[in-house]
């Protein structure tokens, strides 16, 4: 890994932290009727790292982001609650980029958001032992599809410009994704 890559990843981690914190502030400003509904803005950064860096980098940045955000907002309990979602979402998006080459970045983003939401419900079910909370996973699936579309469109509009400005190349797996699917 070059110094340029390490520096860029650190800057991206800082950006994803800002997005997470801004998002939690937005959540307090605009009350939503369903708890757990988030835009998932930090997922944009996770997708960027998956497209231009590697899976281990995306996992490391995702884990560090959830750890540091939990220190800013809710404490270490929040980390245990959100880290599995962040990890699963990165893994699902990576697999989708490799194997579902018909999808564009918007579809990848939807899958990532849904994986994140479903995993959070699974953690909640494990913690409380209440199996009927799974009901909620289906509600958050729809939320994930909508919020994933929004963040995916942001990614589609910004990624190519950002990569040109930073002078970095996409991984070959991500080329289909960035060019709007096959």
């Amino acid at each position, binding site marked *: 890994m070059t110094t340029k890559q390490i520096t860029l990843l650190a800057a991206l981690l800082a950006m994803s932290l800002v997005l997470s914190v801004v998002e939690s502030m937005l959540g307090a400003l605009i009350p939503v009727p369903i708890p757990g509904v988030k835009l998932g803005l930090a997922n944009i950064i996770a997708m960027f790292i998956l497209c231009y860096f590697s899976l281990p980098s995306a996992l490391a940045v995702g884990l560090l982001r959830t750890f540091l955000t939990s220190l800013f907002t809710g404490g270490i309990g929040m980390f245990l609650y959100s880290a599995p979602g962040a990890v699963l979402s990165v893994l699902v998006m990576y697999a989708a980029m490799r194997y*579902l080459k018909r999808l564009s970045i918007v579809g990848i983003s*939807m*899958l990532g958001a849904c994986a994140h939401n479903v995993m959070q419900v699974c953690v909640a079910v494990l913690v409380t*032992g209440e199996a009927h909370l799974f*009901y909620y996973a*289906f*509600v958050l699936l729809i939320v994930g599809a909508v919020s994933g579309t929004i963040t995916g469109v942001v990614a589609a*509009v910004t990624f190519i410009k950002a990569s040109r400005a930073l002078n970095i190349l996409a991984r070959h797996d991500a080329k289909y994704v960035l060019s709007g*699917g096959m």
Partner: protein
Amino acid sequence: MKRILCKADIALFIIIVVIAVAGIVWMSGAGSAKTAIIRVDGEVYQQVSLSVDQTIVIGDVRIEVKAGAVAFVESDCPTQACVKTGWLSAPGASAACLPNRISITVTGDSGVDAVAE
């Protein structure tokens, strides 16, 4: 400017929504087995399903189950606090008539009170 959304994205969106709606319908059918526990003097007097409309009379107190909810509808107590509590349907909700020492608690299908979100 390249297309942002492709056909596969739209198909994926529809698939996710269909799975979610099917899941919600399926879970709401299976998970609505709520019951109310009626206690007198702290002892369980009767456990009633909220899916069956019925009326339970204990002394001068009348409890009704209607459309998935339960309530004290009549009582001889002076404050009428139990009747004013109204209809209960959420797991964990409860109402009590202290002068008659009767209480109602709604439980979910697992028999454990739901944890507040």
